[in-house]
């Protein structure tokens, strides 16, 4: 009962501190590493929510693929921005004030909402939710169409990323 609250609070603290460091540390490679810590904390939250599939997907897709991609991009563009120069633009103080105000307003709205204090309907999730998810993704009455559209989106992003990132030889290709 009280144990999961303690785990939640520790995880939430780690996530928020890591997220603030992601947007504030001057060295980009450190920001990418702090992002990995924040994503791992979110995977712990998914475990607490009993969404085991998404905890695994979070580790594989976000930490395994996206974070590694970001680290590669940081290394490839290393000489572009000196790490000792200013990393925040001139609007950063204004942006911080606006974001703090946004957080206060959102929290106030959430706390005034009746449903915010609701507890999980049934303490233990039915074990076959993962089966339900898989079946609804292949069911034409369910979510087959969004599933196929998502795969087309991934294919288009793959082709687009290869085309944009490819080195254009001068004189050989167009222009």
């Amino acid at each position, binding site marked *: 009962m009280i144990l999961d609250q303690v785990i939640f609070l520790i995880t939430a603290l780690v996530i928020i501190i890591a*997220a603030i460091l992601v947007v504030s540390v001057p060295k980009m490679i450190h920001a990418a590493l702090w992002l990995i810590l924040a994503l791992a904390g979110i995977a712990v939250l998914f475990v607490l929510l009993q969404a085991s599939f998404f905890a695994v997907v979070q580790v594989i897709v*976000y930490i395994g693929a*996206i974070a590694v991609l970001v680290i590669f*991009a940081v290394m490839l563009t290393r000489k572009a921005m000196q790490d000792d120069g200013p990393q925040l633009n001139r609007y950063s103080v204004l942006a911080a004030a606006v974001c703090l105000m*946004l957080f206060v307003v959102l929290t106030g709205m959430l706390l005034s909402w009746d449903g915010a*204090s609701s507890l999980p309907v049934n303490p233990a999730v039915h074990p076959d939710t993962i089966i339900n998810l898989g079946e609804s993704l292949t069911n034409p009455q369910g979510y087959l169409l969004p599933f196929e559209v998502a795969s087309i989106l991934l294919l288009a*992003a793959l082709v687009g990323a290869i085309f944009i990132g490819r080195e254009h030889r001068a004189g050989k290709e167009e222009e």
Partner: protein
Amino acid sequence: MIPLSWYLILSAALVCVGVFGVISRRNAIAMLLGVELILNAVNINLLAFWRYKDVSHVTGQVFTIMVITAAAAEVAVGLAIFIAVYRNKRTIAAEDVADLKG
């Protein structure tokens, strides 16, 4: 038992940190990291609502899969664009890439 509001407030805080990163970082890759934080906050919200309402409805989970897919596509294309920009202009600062500005 954790009340639903704890997840929602954590997610609101994560969104605000992400928005701050997108607005105020000069490095374009750092702006992408802010977008990642925002999308993760969305995922927390979706899964929390799925867990605290009817777990037999998988809509929240399906939507989380879509968000993860969109995030992966966005990062792949975004980083390819930034590397192409770096190759051509030798800069990765967002304010230096303003060729389309009127």
